[in-house]
């Protein structure tokens, strides 16, 4: 259950929602959501934070980085930062995975917040 897909499924079931219901809420296709839950597709950062918000869990928990699924104030701020449509980034070298990129974003957020 430690995988992203597994945790997405778990969070959905904890809410007692069907895949169909969630798809209707988000306006996405069934195959897309089931792809996420089977680790067949990887949600982008925007989708990840939308799902986290919907299920009321933290992104770190979804990514399997912590066992703590509570969403705190700082978590919500961080999500607003990474899903901001006006955020522009250019990499000197591309991240190998979404996970690596999220870790980097977290560090940046710490720097930006501390200003």
């Amino acid at each position, binding site marked *: 259950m430690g995988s992203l897909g597994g945790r997405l499924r778990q969070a959905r079931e904890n809410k007692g929602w069907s895949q169909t219901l969630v798809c209707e809420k988000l306006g996405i296709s069934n195959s897309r959501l089931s792809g996420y839950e089977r680790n067949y597709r990887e949600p982008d*950062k925007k989708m990840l934070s939308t799902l986290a918000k919907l299920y009321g869990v933290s992104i770190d928990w979804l990514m399997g980085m912590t066992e703590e699924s509570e969403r705190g104030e700082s978590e919500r701020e961080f999500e607003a930062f990474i899903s901001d449509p*006006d*955020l522009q*980034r*250019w990499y000197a070298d591309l991240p190998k995975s979404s996970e690596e990129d999220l870790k980097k974003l977290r*560090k940046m957020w710490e*720097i*930006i917040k501390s200003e």
Partner: protein
Amino acid sequence: MYHYTPLESYMREFLLFLSIQTPNQLTIDHIMERLNIHVHYWNDKSEAMIYKGKKRMFINKQLSNEERWQIFGHELCHIMMHHGSQFNMPASFLAYQEWKADNFALHVCVPTFMLLQMDLPFRKPQAIYEVASTFGVTPQFASRRLEHLENQYIGSIFDQKLIREMSGISKVNEDYGDYT
């Protein structure tokens, strides 16, 4: 006789606008201050970011001063000229942006108008060394930069000759020398 490319002319205007006229004014500190860019040195990979209208660069600490300066030039192009987030960008467009930024870096770190004021040594290895030490870039970078300069020179000489040939003037006047 040297023909400036549009990028070279832009660079001259741009740097003069920032009141930068000599190689020793070409530094990260100098430019970030004038353009109001926040630069953070850290242990992670380098990148540039615009968030809430604020321009930022995160530059890897482990890089040498020369590499930092070259990365800065590259990322400056993105911040000034480009739009978007590269994470979901089509690969070909990303490659195009990167190519543009590399080219921009060559010209902002070693501007043509400053190169032309130098008395470059006639032999290439010495010229490369001279450019690298004057502008604080790596020898590889200096060598690529000089190739650009040469191509542009050869191109304008070719142009001139062609024009003369076409207009039926066979006597070619050699009024454009080498680097010196």
